[in-house]
Structures are given as structure tokens and as C-alpha cells.
């Protein structure tokens, strides 16, 4: 089982890296892009001792306490069997 955690900047927080990436891809000729936001992605391998609900609970707590800073970031947890 795998827990996937996506950490993204809150919409209200400016993302200078995302802006620079958008600028670069536009220079390459990509069109129709209104915004790019950069985030972080974590893959957490879960051993057999946790069931899906426990894994979700644990990953969510980890995301809140460690992987994200709630002042500037949001997170999303997905569990893959």
C-alpha cells in the first residue's frame, strides 16, 4: 500500500517559482497557459501492519505536522492499494 501526499501553496501565497516556470514554457512556445503553481509530492510506502483507514489517518497526520506548513500550504492525501 502507498500513501500519496500532495502539498501545494495556498492560493493566497505568491509562487515565484511557478511564475518563472510559466515564463519559461511560454518562451518554448506553449500557449494557452494561464498559471503554473509548483508543489511537492511524497510517496509513502506502508507496510502490512496498517489497514487502509489507519494508513490514511497516519499519512494525514504526517502531512499536517511535518510535510506541510499549514500557514502557507494545503495538502491532499490519497491511498493506493
Amino acid at each position: 500500500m502507498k500513501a500519496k501526499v500532495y502539498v501545494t501553496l495556498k492560493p493566497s501565497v505568491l509562487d515565484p517559482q511557478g511564475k518563472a516556470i510559466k515564463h519559461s514554457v511560454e518562451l518554448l512556445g506553449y500557449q494557452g497557459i494561464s498559471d503554473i503553481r509548483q508543489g511537492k509530492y511524497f510517496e509513502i510506502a506502508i507496510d502490512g501492519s496498517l489497514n487502509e483507514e489507519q494508513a490514511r489517518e497516519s499519512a494525514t497526520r504526517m502531512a499536517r505536522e511535518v510535510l506541510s506548513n499549514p500557514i502557507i500550504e494545503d495538502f491532499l492525501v490519497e491511498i493506493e492499494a
Partner: protein
Amino acid sequence: MKFGVIVFPGSNCDHDAYHVISKHVGQPVDFVWHRDTDLSSYDAVIIPGGFSYGDYLRAGALARFSPVMNSVKQFAAEGKLVLGICNGFQILCEAGLLPGALIRNRDLHFVCEHVNVRVESTNTPFTNELKQGSVLRMPIAHAEGNYVCDDAALAELQREDRIIFRYCEPDGRLSNEANPNGSRDNIAGICNRERNVMGLMPHPERACEDLLGSSDGRIVFSSLAGILAAAA
């Protein structure tokens, strides 16, 4: 009075802080390894600049889980003095001892230069010997110094006179151009509600000798020492 300088893996301004306390303040000072937890012999601790844990995850994020940080929280709760410089400021924010967060600089670059900061409040143990509105020249060296907080937190900082330094022009005027990293409200340093914990991005410990371009930072340390001497 005795000072402690916390050392994390990746701290690199620890010796500068130690040097300033021993040479310019003339007081006893120890390095405190991040696995140590006994701060009982200290009156003030400095969390120095650097790249604790390689800035992995977020600047300051992993240092906050070091054993010493529980002791620092306790130390701060007892009203003792905690000064976080640069990475130390980032760690204090991550640890929740100061509000807000420090994110990537507006222009994405690592900025390493002398800047001007205006003294916004002298009502702290770190700034009481400074003059309100005076301008200090100090170096900065960071890629994540862009201070952010929500509207409510900013209003609270303003209302409670907790913005201690703001980036400014040499004559003290605030401007966007003088803001090296995009920090909200030109914030360069803040304190907690109890005013015994301060964090700032500029390096006062690297501005204590004219030979190094500025000695404006000395007054931060002499303010601290003066308060501790008066309390002793």
C-alpha cells in the same frame, strides 16, 4: 549571564555568534548541540544562521524536530531570551514560536548583500539601546527570506508593535525597491507577544566590526547584555 548558541547539522553562523558574544559582549558562551536538552544554565540562547538539515523539505522545517527545540520552547515560555537569526528566524516560525513563514525570495535569487533596516520598535530586550526610526546597515544572505502571514496575523503584529525591523532606503524611507525579498510590509524582523523571542533575517552578528563593512549590529547584542545585567 551566560549565552548558548544552538548548533544544528548545517548551522554555519554559529561561530560568528559565539565570537560576538565572547569578544564584543565579553560574556561566557557555549555551543549547544541540537541533541542536548539542558538549557538551565543559560539566560539567552541564539539560534544562528545557516542551512540546518540542508534546508530539506522547507527551510527550518526539520530543525524544529531536534531534541533541543522542546527545551527552547520551554526556555521561551519561562520568559528567557531567544534570538533567531536568518535560518534561526525560519526555525522559530516553523516551530510556532513566531507567527508567519519565510518563503522563496520574490525574485528567486539567493540574495547576499548589505541592506538597510529601520528600527520600528525599541520595546524589546534586543533593541532597547537602539533609537526608534534609526537605520542600521546589516548583511543578508538567504534564498527564503520572503516573510508571509495572513491579514489577521499582520494586523496583530502591527497593533501590538511587534514588527521590529523593516527593510528601507538608506534615509529610512520604505519602498518596494529596498525590500530585497518581497517580504510582506517590508518585514525584516518580528517578536512574539511576550517580546522575549525575536527573529530577523539580517545578520547583526556579521555587522559587529567596521572591518567587515558595518558595526551597526553590535547594539542588538549590547541591548541584550544590558537587559540581562540589569536583571541580575
